[in-house]
Each structure stands twice: as C-alpha cells, then as structure tokens.
C-alpha cells in the first residue's frame, strides 16, 4: 500500500496539468448540467451547445488522463527503467486504479450528484443509479482505454489501436450492419448491451491483471483481439428468444399469470389472410387472442415462433421479434416461401407456436399543474409543466435520473373545465420505447435523461398528466391451431390498371 501511494503521488506530481484539465471539464459539466435543470421551468434557458461541448470534452479528457497515467510506466517493451526496479505489480496496478478512482470516478460521481440534486431529484432514492452509473463509467469509459493503454507504449500506438477496430467496424457497418450491430431487440436490447459490457469488463480486467503481473504483451493483444471477435459474434448471434428468456429470469414475476393463454381468434376468423406478394412470397396473417389476463393488465406481444406442418410432414418455421402495439388482440404475421405455400395451401395444416409477451399493469396517473416548479412523479422522476407565451403553447418536461424510466410513460394535457368539450391533443401511446433493463442506470455521461412534449392548442389547459404502466411479467405461451387451410384465406393483390 505504501508503494502504491508513493507511485500515486509521483503520478499526481507528473500529471498535474492533465488532472487540472479533467477537473475543469468536470466542473463545467456539473455547472452546465445543473443549469439545464432550469429548462424544466423555463425552456428558454436551454444551452445545448455548451452542454454538447462538455459531453464531448469530458471523455476525451478522461481518456487522455487514463492513457497518460498508464503510459507513465509503460508495460510493453524491455527498456523502461522501472522494470528492473523493485516495483510490485500489485502496487503499480493499485496506484493506477487509485489515480483513476480519484481523478475520474470521484469527481464525476460528485458532479452527477450535484446535477441530480439540481433537478430536484431525491439523492437518497437515486443512490443505486448513482453507484451503478459509476460501474458503467468504468466499463464503458475506463476499462477499455486502460486495457488498450496497457498494451501500447505511447499515444500514437494507442490512437492506432483505437482507430483500427473503429475503421474495421465502420466498414462492416456500411457493408453489413447486421454483422456489427445485430438486430435491435427493442426492450430486450439491454441483454445484448450487457453481454458486450460483460465481454469488455472480463477481457479488459484480464488484460490489465495479466499485463501488470506478466508483461506479456503479445498474449494480451491476442486476448484483446479474441474479445473483440467474441463481442461482435455475441452481438450478432444472440437470438431475441434467448434475450427474452434472460429477461424472464431477471424479472420478478409480480403477477398471477396462470390463467393467461393464447388461442386462434375464431370470432375474427375473417381477419386471417394469405396474401400473395411479389418475389414468390406469401404473407400469412393469423388473428390471435390473448385471454385470461387479470383485471387491469395489458399484454404487449414481444415476439413469436411459429411452426407450420403439412399432412405429409413438410415443415416451415419462423422466429420473429415484434414491434407491435399493446392489446389483447394480435395478428401474427409471417412470410412463407411461395413453393411451400402452393404445396400446402389446400391441405389441413397444424400450426404450433409460442407467443412471448410482457404483461403491464399498476397504472398510475400523476397530475402536473402549470406552475414554475417541478413535481415528483413516482417511477419517472420529476416533471414540470409550463404554459408558454400568452398561454398558447404548453410544455411538459420530465427528467429521470440515470436512465429513461423502466415503465411505459404517456403524457396528456387536460383542458380547463369550461373547454373540456373541445378537442385537445393528448397522447395515450407511450412516448418512447421502454428498456426492460433491471439495472438502475444506462450507459452515458449525462446523469439525467429528459423527455418533453408540447401542445399548441388555442384553448386554456389546466394541467398535464403523466401515466405510467409497469412491466410486471415476461411470459411465453404456446398455442396450437388445427385443420387450418391457408387457401381459404388467400388474397391476391388487385391488378394495377394501366
């Protein structure tokens, strides 16, 4: 410990200028971030340019500081003075970790606290997010650059090490975006993100420990390359059904869902379709009904797998993620190969499948009056509603700490009693896609996420309203449809008249 402190003091003395730059940018971050809180009550105070500049400068200042402190005792090579001196690798690594903790984590942690408080968000309640955001900061902004710095001797090598995979990823993203990013998994996308975080944290920690203990740079670089490949493969190959299973495992099932079942919606049989499309494809549409939901519970289908089997044993199957709406009725849509369709269309089919869905409930409504102060909205954070110039435009701004709320949020404006009969815009649809992540923070620098909506109706409004719905369970239900003859529902596109 004494040696670690001794090295730490040396680093502080050497890198005082870089430390001063980081602290200055963090102070600017806290100041501009806290000032943005004024936006809640006065949208004219929004200073996006300064804030954006700080958000760009902050990681650059961190990365420079981290790289400089690690390169001060560069690990690759055989000519550095320190490698033949009585350095303990644990002390050296400890000194670097202490330095990063002191000049990267703690200042930004304090700044986050200042910003969150400036928004009127209760610090005590936001403590899990405040702490988890430090974990994410370490995974996203510290560990990768620290590991790359441990594998390089100086800034030029480091920049090259950062740019090379970026250029390769960019090239791949242009040629084949699905290879780099995989598909977007909606609310389940956090599973892919955390898989990436897991690979980064394990690989970067292993590289750091390995390099400090052994200084075997070639092996460390091979590990970094392998981790990069593993990360891309995972991002590409994780199927949404696996992500859903992980989601179910993480979620508390706070609901009796034993009666929930999925059936063919025979009452709306007429909604079934087999639409002949171009390119020898046939779009199958089957109406399904989600029944047995407890009162006040709304289902949101997230994806399905379906398996069509003809009498001769011919099989076709699909596995698809949905971006559909919420509700009890659901139309399963899948495109089948034209050849397969022609073969089975007049035969009685057996359809088997599974529907993956999220059940929402516990609706809560909070009224936000048009006042110059913000209102605490449980599950969301703080919201404030303002009437604009001459009360002709109205704003509703909601701020959440460390992540967008893990609930479905919808906003609406309520007219004054005497105008109640007039048509006033309101949105009952959720404002933005929800993330089902069970963690209290999302990756990012800004500790506060904001969402806003406005109305320009020329009638006096009395207040705004924020509705939230909580995801209570992520479940899968199997269904079976027998003796379905797709030919009965065939629809041919109308011929285009010349």
């Amino acid at each position, binding site marked *: 410990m004494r040696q670690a402190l001794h090295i730490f003091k040396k680093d502080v003395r050497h890198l005082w200028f870089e430390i001063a730059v980081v602290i200055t940018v963090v102070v600017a971050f806290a100041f501009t971030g806290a000032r943005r809180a004024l936006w809640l009550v006065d949208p004219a105070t929004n200073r996006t340019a300064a804030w954006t500049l700080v958000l760009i400068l902050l990681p650059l200042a961190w990365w420079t500081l981290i790289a400089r402190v690690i390169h001060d005792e560069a690990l690759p090579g055989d000519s550095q003075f320190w490698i033949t*001196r009585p350095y303990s690798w644990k002390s050296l690594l400890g000194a670097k970790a202490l330095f990063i903790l002191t000049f990267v984590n703690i200042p930004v942690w304090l700044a986050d606290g200042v910003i969150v408080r400036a928004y009127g968000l209760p610090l005590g309640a936001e403590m899990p997010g405040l702490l988890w955001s430090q974990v994410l900061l370490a995974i996203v902004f510290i560990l990768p650059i620290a590991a790359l710095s441990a594998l390089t001797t100086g800034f030029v090598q480091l920049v090259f090490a950062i740019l090379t995979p970026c250029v390769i990823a960019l090239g791949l993203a242009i040629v084949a975006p699905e290879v780099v990013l995989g598909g977007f998994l909606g609310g389940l996308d956090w599973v892919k993100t955390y898989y990436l975080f897991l690979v980064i944290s394990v690989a970067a920690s292993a590289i750091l420990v390995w390099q400090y203990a052994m200084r075997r740079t070639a092996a460390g670089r091979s590990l970094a390359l392998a981790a990069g490949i593993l990360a891309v493969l995972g991002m590409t190959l994780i199927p949404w059904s696996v992500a859903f299973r992980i989601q179910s495992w993480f979620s508390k099932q706070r609901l009796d869902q034993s009666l929930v079942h999925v059936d063919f919606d025979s009452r709306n049989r007429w909604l079934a379709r087999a639409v002949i499309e171009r390119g020898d494809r046939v779009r199958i549409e089957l109406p399904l009904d989600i029944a047995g939901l407890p009162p006040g519970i709304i289902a949101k289908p997230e994806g399905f797998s379906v398996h069509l089997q003809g009498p001769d044993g011919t099989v076709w199957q699909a596995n698809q993620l949905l971006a559909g709406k919420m509700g009890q009725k659901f139309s399963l849509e899948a495109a089948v190969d034209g050849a397969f369709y022609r073969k089975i269309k007049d035969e009685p089919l057996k359809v088997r499948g599974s529907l993956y869905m999220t059940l929402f409930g516990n609706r809560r409504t909070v009224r936000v009056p048009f006042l110059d102060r913000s209102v605490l909205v449980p599950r969301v954070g703080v919201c404030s509603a303002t009437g604009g110039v001459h009360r002709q435009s109205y704003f509703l701004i909601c701020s959440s700490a460390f992540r967008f709320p893990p609930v479905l949020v919808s906003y609406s404006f309520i007219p004054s009693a005497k105008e109640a009969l007039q048509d006033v815009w309101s949105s009952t649809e959720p404002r933005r896609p929800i993330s089902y992540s069970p963690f209290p923070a999302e990756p990012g620098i800004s500790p506060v996420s904001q969402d806003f909506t406005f109305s320009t109706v020329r009638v006096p409004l009395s207040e705004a309203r924020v509705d939230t719905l909580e995801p209570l369970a992520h479940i899968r239900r199997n269904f079976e449809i027998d003796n379905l003859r797709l030919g009965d529902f065939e629809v041919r596109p109308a011929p285009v008249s010349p």
Partner: protein
Amino acid sequence: MSNILRTSDLSKRFQQTVVLDHLNMIVPEHSVYGLVGPNGAGKTTTIKILMNARQPTEGMAEVFGRDSRKLSPEDFTQIGYVSENQQMPEWMTVEYFMNYLKPFYPDWDVVRAQELVRLFELPPDRKIRNLSHGMRMKAALASSLAYRPRLIVLDEPFTGLDALVRDELIEGVLECAEGATILISSHDLSEIESFASHIGYLDRGRLQFSEEMTSLVDRFREIEITLANPSPSPISWPAAWLNTEQSAALVRFVDTQFDQERTIAEVHRLFGNTHQISVNPMPLRAIFVTLAKAGRKAA
C-alpha cells in the same frame, strides 16, 4: 565461490532468427564478469533475459539461484541495472529521481546517494531530459549504486561516451561496488581489460569461452616465427592456431592454447628449424579481434 548468475541451455529466437543458442554461462559471486562479443552476438538479449525484461524461448536463466522469470521486487532491491538504451523518466529532475527511488530500497544510503551525485557532478535540479547522454548514464549509475546492490549489471554502459566520462564511470563503479558481483557487457574491451576478473566471449548466440581473465591472457599469444629454411604451409594447421599467415620464411599465428613447451615443439614439428620465435602476449582487444575474424571465416 557460489554462482550469482547462471544460464542453462538458454535459447532465444525471434521468429526464424536464433539470437541465443543453448547458452551456458556462469557468473561467480564477487567476480567482475565481462561479456564481450561482436554486434548481434546476443549480449543484450542475455542480460535482458537475466533481468526478466524478456522471456527465453528455451532453457533457463537464474539470478541468485532463482528462475529469472520469477524475480521478485525483493530480488531487485539487490540488483543495480544500467543499460545504454534505458528509458528514463525524462520529466524528473536528478534530485527527484533519486528521492523517488529511495523508498523502493530498504538499504538506500542517503549519504552515499549524495556522494554519488557529487562524484558524478550531476546537477540535482536539472531534468533528466536535459542531461547529456553521459550525464544520463551517470544518473542511472548513481541511482543503481546508492543501495549497495549485491549484483550490478551494466549493459554496454560506455557506448557513446567520451574517454573522460568512461573513466569516471569505471572509477565510480569500482569505488562503490566493493564486494558486489558485476556483469558488464561492452565493446570497449580496453576498459574491461583493466578491471574484469572473468571474461565470456559470445558469438552468434553461443558462448565461445568463459574463463578467468588471467588464464585467458595466459593462453593467448601472438607468435611470429622466422624459418631457417623456407618451407611450404602445413597441410593442416593445429586447431588452436588462429589467423595463420605464411610468407616465404615468415609464419604468424595466434595460439589460443599457448603452452611454452608444447607450442615450441609443435612449431618444430611443422616447420623444422627456426631462425627466431617471437612470443607476444595479447591485449584483450587483439584477442577479441582474432576470435571475431576466425568466427567470420568459419561462418
């Protein structure tokens, strides 16, 4: 006398290039061991492996009887290492550098450190980046002698230094390294000759010989013979004779296994009567050049 440094079948390859080829070397305790050899012989690689700065491909290197790959910080408190191409903390002043290193060494002698700074005339408040090459070497040496290391390893310490600085460095080492074992690699053979007790000759990754300086100097002789009657060159020269030359009645060679009686008898056997035999001792530099030339011929 126990062995402070030892290599056993030590090999190092960089891809296809063999730099060390089953090197077996022993450095006895309290010796001043000069490791000499032409450029690319593998001297620096040997030292870097001994200091755990590089990994061997095969074999083993031992320092204080411990595998060099497992040298601990405690072991390094007893080792002073100075290399010609060492990267120093350029931003530190000489004084800060010495003060910074002090807590790493339990046996750091503050008075001695100050004496070394004075002896080498190092400017305490000057940054290392602003020191001349000679001054940097002196700073490195001062910082490596202040804790009375048991082992001092000097890798080409005299390269690029003028004669005065060289003398100062040698004096400094000899004054302060009493009782220590010194391993020094150098091309500057004349300086090594003046204080090395043992010498190892490394060529193309192989140790050609390793022995005490006195026995080495005793067994190498430059011999010049004036023949009584001109005679043809022998069909085969003795293996111990290197750089053989013959012109009419004059024969010259270097005997690497000189023994007064045996060498004279061999001369008479090969050339018959001689008019004169001149036997001259050789300086280390001449021995090194002879071996290097012979090595190139053989290659």
